[in-house]
């Protein structure tokens, strides 16, 4: 098994938003999607997925409706709302700045100081 990375606080929401922005997904699908995209580096605890989903839905970032999954099962599909799209954009930008900053700090060599 590949090394998994502990999720930073607050990043789960961002990952979920990104996952459902690609296409509407059901809960299990979101788990798989995140694992797949991150090359199995990110493993979402099943226990924390649903509370996060319900919180985002309550905040109006995603909406849900029942539909049929690839293997003909009834499943609840989550979709990004306009507000969710805005939030995803903001958070992604923030995350990018943040990781670049961290990267710069970590890349610093003694002669740069």
């Amino acid at each position: 098994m590949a090394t998994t990375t502990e999720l930073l606080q607050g990043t789960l929401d961002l990952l979920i938003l990104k996952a459902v922005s690609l296409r509407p997904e059901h809960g299990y699908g979101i788990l798989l999607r995140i694992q797949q995209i991150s090359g199995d580096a990110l493993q979402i605890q099943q226990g924390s997925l649903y509370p996060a989903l319900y919180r985002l839905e309550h905040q109006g970032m995603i909406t849900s409706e029942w539909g049929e999954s690839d293997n003909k099962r009834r499943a609840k599909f989550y979709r990004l709302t306009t507000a969710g799209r805005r939030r995803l954009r903001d958070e992604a930008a923030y995350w990018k700045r943040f990781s670049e900053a961290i990267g710069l700090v970590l890349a610093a060599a003694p002669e740069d100081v």
Partner: protein
Amino acid sequence: MTRFPRLRSFLSALFRRRRLEADMEAEWRAHLDAHVDALVASGLSRADATRRARTEFGDPARWREQALEVRGVGWVTDLAADLRYGLRQMQRAPVFTATVLVTLAAGIGLNTAVFSVIDAVLVRSLSYPDPERMLWVTTVDRDQEMVNSPDFLAWKEQASSFDGLVAFDFSNYAISTADNVVESRVAWVTEDFWAVSGARPSLGRLPLNGEDAVLLSYPFFERAFHADPALAGRAVTIGGRQVTVAGVLPPGFRPQLTKPFVSNGLQERDVDAYRTMRVTPPTMAGGITRVQLFSVIGKLKAGVSIERARTDLETIRSRTKTANPNFRLPPTLRVMALKDTIVGNATRPLIVLLVAAGFVFLIACANVAHLFLVRASVRRREVAIRAAIGAGRWRLSRQFFVESALVGAAGAVVGLVVARWSLATIIRILPYGVPRLQETTIDGRALAFATAAAIVAALVFGMVPIWSLWKDDARGVLKQALTGALPMTGRLRTKGTLVALEFALTIVLLIGAGLLIKSLWRLNALPDGFYPDRIVTMDVRFFGPAYRDEGARRAHAAEALRRVSTVPGVRAAAVTTNADSRIRLMREGDPLPPRRDDEPAFANVTVASADLAQVMGLRPVRGRWLTDFEPSPAWVINETFARRHFGDSDPVGARFRAGPESLATVVGVVADRKLQRLDARAEPELYSDYAHSPMFGYSIVASVTIDAEAAAAEVRRRAAGVDTAVPVLEVKTLEAALADSIAPYRFNLFTFGLFAAVALLLASVGIYGTLAYSTSRRTQEIGIRLALGAARGEVVAMVIRQGMTVALIGTLAGLVIGVAVARVMRGLLYEVSPSDPYIFAAASAVLLLAGFAASLGPALKAASVQPLIALRHE
């Protein structure tokens, strides 16, 4: 669709929770199935896959909670659970719940009612456009508070500090239309009244300047004229004169006027019609100056102080005095805020009432407190166990908070029902003894007051079981609770103190009620042979030119008397005048100022025909009674008169000045009798013979053998038949007339008596509860005593002693407070000393007896303990 997503999801979580949960279940099942499929595909057996998927998935129950929490409805579901639990607790302890509810309801209900009355009477302002600018202006001569026309006319013309000055007076009149005659209370008002009171007729118009017109009150317009709009502008006959009905005032129009003068003999009641009055300068005839007398209210100019108004009026008066040298104006001017006048006399009874209600409320709170304390001891164990198995302090505190609030709220609701009922009763039993009582309703503030009081009372004491949780840790609490090692003595002392407090407060109320009962009894003590319920009285007033002649008036009286005498069931009938007219006594040859300077030499004059003594049961003690055919003016005086002016010497044969040229001879003395007002002390009275006394109106009194109400109707019909133009008014039994005069006493007694009874009940419940609780806690100890050979009688005595000690301490403490409070009540009493020892003794006896009765039950129960069962019990 996406607007207010949070609110929508909150609401759907709240109201469609079942659907939401089913939805989540389905979602998780789909998730699990997908996961299991994936695991099976990777090579696991279906059973292993299922187990593994479940483990990885975790506990759905926790997520369900979180899902609700996330949507902000967590506290709602918790609260609902707390409420359900609280209701179950109430059901499980029905006696406790019922007692607390009744106690709270009584305390809150009575308090709210009293609060509403006080709010209406003392706090709410007058119904005038600028209430704070309204003044009452009067001049005072001895105990007469009336304004004379010369004063009023001068003020009206010269005063600069008023926006309006209104003279007014009251009369009772028959108002007749072509097909209807109705009795009415008419207020005479001068023209400024309309502006000052802000009158805007809902029908018709205001009177024109100088027009003789009336405006009807709306209730009267409905009652007497079926709200017929055609009435406006038409003429009606009032007291023999044609008067135009200018209009009808709106339903809420009720400006407060001061009471009618005592000498008018009118009770206070709603005004049916306002009639324009003209104030005319004094007239001189035969050496006598005749002036109009009336009451006056005024509206201050904005920004002018009462002081400046007083100086203004006083300055004008000094000029008026100089201008009228031969007319004596009343010496003193009095100016005060109209509100203080209207409210004035009612303040003391209401404050006493407030104190009484406050006491009941304190007792109720003390009772609720110790009921909750008793309950707390029982529930400590529950608290300890729940704390031990993981319930947090906050969670438990909230639980108890909800329970207490539930009881408090229920108490407030029942209390409001009680308040409504008490208020309705208070208003019904006393239509006019207290000003503005009619305007009383339970308002929002009273509601808030009741609710706040209830919740606070319940909360403070409902939280007691939780208290120790915050003090000790859960383990200590549990240990104590399970081993029964509760700090019992401290708890019991608290309860004992509360009960003693209840007794102290109760005895004060009992003393108050006792003093009032004795007052009422004194007031109602009627002499032998005097049956006011079998005496019918009625007033006849003459109006119009037909009765300008004294002879015509006498003829009317004689004919009415003859007709009334022949009504079946009438034993005797007599003509008399409205008493309360007073004369200044001058004996033949007396120098002008009366003999004794400290006693005002006045007497009440009653004109009497021969049968008055028989009707009223007046008993001659010296000389003889009057006949209808006295050859010269004759007087009969009462004992007070005789005592005051003749001491021990015989008054019969003494001669007084009766008019400018005539002398009257005293022919007899009768025993003192209170005939006009029951609350009046005996005053000097004189009865002057009917043939030699001028009459402007008269009353007929008739003693009847049959049902007085039925006779009254017939008597009225016959008397009215003499001349339909002469109205016969205020027909009622003397008992009813007298009852009106003691209505305030009955009101005080009713309220105080009610409060005292409630207090007594609550205090008894208190002592019963405490003893029942403490004996039940001592079952084991009592069992041991019995097993060791104590007699059951000793156990009974022990418990009763315990109860009576508390009762006695409370009672003794209360007697001290009682002395102070009774002193405040002095003004409400009649011929009873506020420190009447019999009342104090009786009140103590009643209270201790109640305490004893309440102790007896628990004592007997304690004595019936079976030693073996008791010992096995713990």
